[in-house]
């Protein structure tokens, strides 16, 4: 039996204030007074969460910061032999208990893939693992979707709670918060809130049921691996689908499942850091080799790899898991409105290759 509390609409702040006194709390907010979009920020008392629409950028950076230091180093004189230089090397892996409050099922679904990639072996990424273990997701049952959303097409849905710890069901006068797993119980306790009434519990259950049955997006994109292999060498196909692409990194940076990163060294004086930073497979430099050779020299190879990675390679590697959560951000934010659904659907042989 799951434990639940009710937070009235005007009672959100006290709850978040209590939580944020104990741990890091991230909430979606509007990007600015005259902005249409939103993003996740660290909650401080007074922050106004915006839970009614999807944020422009996903909560990805909470577990995979856009840039982080993997290690720091310093060149120092060897105390025993002044002519020699030694390296002092330090790597600090730390993570604070964190709650992500008000993410959507699609936002969280990205982390299911991250878990496989970063902690599923053969090597463990401790930086990620530690943060992941300390992070709790309080996830909204999603009631707002638009023409770019397609979570149901990738095997998820607007009420999918996989990977989440608490479920937030928006009711007319507030939110019902339920702990989905045992690790969420202390968080729920910390939140306080009210004992939910029977009516509230019923209303929430109805909404959850109704939402689970919703079909967000048409078609099924979960079995496209073979079609992709069939189209791999069909350059005409890739030309017809993505000639518009301008090779920017928007789609990858706003994507909850894109995790590819770069590692670079930065120095000042005799000290420096090794940084891990988001990279984008849409950039020319991503695969450029020192010899000048580039296995993906044009946007067509690069876009093809993006599709392949999400819909063919990842499913093949991770037992059918799709590298796409259907949030639609890449479609919505694309400067030239490329529709990834169409590119995947049309992979099927005999499908019309015109965009």
């Amino acid at each position, binding site marked *: 039996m799951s434990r639940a509390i009710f937070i009235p609409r005007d009672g959100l702040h006290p709850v978040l204030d209590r939580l944020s006194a104990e741990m890091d709390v991230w909430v979606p907010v509007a*990007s*600015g007074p005259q*902005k*249409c*979009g939103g*993003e996740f920020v660290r909650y401080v008392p007074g922050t106004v969460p915006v839970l009614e629409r999807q944020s*422009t*950028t996903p909560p990805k950076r909470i577990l995979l910061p*856009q*840039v982080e230091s993997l290690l720091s180093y310093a060149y120092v004189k060897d105390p025993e032999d002044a002519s020699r230089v030694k390296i002092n090397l330090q790597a600090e892996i730390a993570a604070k208990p964190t709650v992500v409050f008000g993410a959507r099922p699609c936002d969280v679904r990205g982390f299911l893939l991250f878990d496989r990639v970063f902690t599923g072996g053969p090597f463990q990424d401790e930086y990620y693992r530690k943060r992941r273990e300390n992070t709790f997701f309080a996830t909204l049952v999603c009631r*707002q*979707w*638009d*023409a*770019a959303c397609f979570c149901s097409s990738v095997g998820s849905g607007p009420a999918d709670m996989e990977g989440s710890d608490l479920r937030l069901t928006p009711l007319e006068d507030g939110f019902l918060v339920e702990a989905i797993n045992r690790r969420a119980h202390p968080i729920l306790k910390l939140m306080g809130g009210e004992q939910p009434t029977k009516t509230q519990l019923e209303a929430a259950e109805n909404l959850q049921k109704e939402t689970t049955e919703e079909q967000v997006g048409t078609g099924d994109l979960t079995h496209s691996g073979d079609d992709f292999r069939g189209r791999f060498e069909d350059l005409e196909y890739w*030309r017809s689908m993505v*000639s*518009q*692409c*301008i*090779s*920017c*990194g*928007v789609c*990858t*940076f*706003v994507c909850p499942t894109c995790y590819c990163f*770069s590692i*670079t060294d*930065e120095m000042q004086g005799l000290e420096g850091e090794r*940084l891990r*930073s988001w990279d*984008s497979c849409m*950039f*020319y*430099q991503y695969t450029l080799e020192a010899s000048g050779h580039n296995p993906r020299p*044009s*946007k*067509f190879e690069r876009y093809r790899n993006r599709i392949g990675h999400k819909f063919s390679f990842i499913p093949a590697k991770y037992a059918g898991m799709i590298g796409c959560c259907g949030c639609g951000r890449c*479609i919505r*934010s694309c*400067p*030239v*409105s*490329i*529709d990834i*659904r*169409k590119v995947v659907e049309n992979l099927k042989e005999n499908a019309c290759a*015109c*965009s």
Partner: protein
Amino acid sequence: MVIGWGTGYDPLHVTPVFLRGLEDVSRLIWNPLCVQNLTGYLVKGALTPPLEEGKKIGICVRGCDSRSLVALIQEKLLSRESLHIFGIPCRGTLDVRRLMNESGLSQIRSVTIQGDHLVVQNDEEAHRFPLERFLARRCLRCRHPNPVIYDELVYQPITPRTAPEDAYRDVEAMEARSLQERHLFWSSELDRCIRCYACRNACPLCICQDRCIAETREPRWLTQRVNLPEKFLYHFIHALHLAGRCTECGECERVCPMEIPVTLIKEKLNQITRDLLHYEAGLDPEALPPLLTYNPNEAGI
């Protein structure tokens, strides 16, 4: 080949189309939702297969886009002879993001233009909005709605909505603020930058593309860090490399996923080149951009 606009993933979104034969012509559309400047495709290695020798390429341009063409021709990045330009006098394009956000609409079935109004039909009913309300900022300050260069003009020329003296009112409004306020403004705006480089890649005049100094390790102007100075410097690089070249098509601002008013930075530079060097970019194919030349007897400097 002809580059134009076609219907995108929903009735509000338009996507560039590359027409290769007569059978493709039906895909071509024109309305205030045709927001992209297509001229970048001519110079940024997108044309595959390459054009056959001696064949022209057709391109649809609005007034602002035509100025990009002029700038590219000035810098010998394009030859006028290789182009067949379909010029379209433009009353302004919409800020689709704002339209979606402020109207609160989703599940849109159709969008039609009726005179000065936009009619959006969703599942429930038809909503009517004055076009004016959702025009993009770049269009509200437009001085060149009519293409300045073309082979065919598709509609009748129209009267510009903005007088030259009003062109930089957004810049002036910013300058009415104190130095510290301006710094706070840009700090909070640029802090949202995720360095996706959409502004650079959408810019028809940012022609270095894969060789941009923002990404090279040698010289290393920028690191991968995402702190404020790096973001400031990136936008300085972008803007300063466009000084005296930018034609204010506003693409950088339109494509920014984080809604940073990056065109405003370039507007200021253009105001400076206008006042100081008496030059407006993208009007005369024969002119030389002012920072590519000099005057030994400079007045006013």
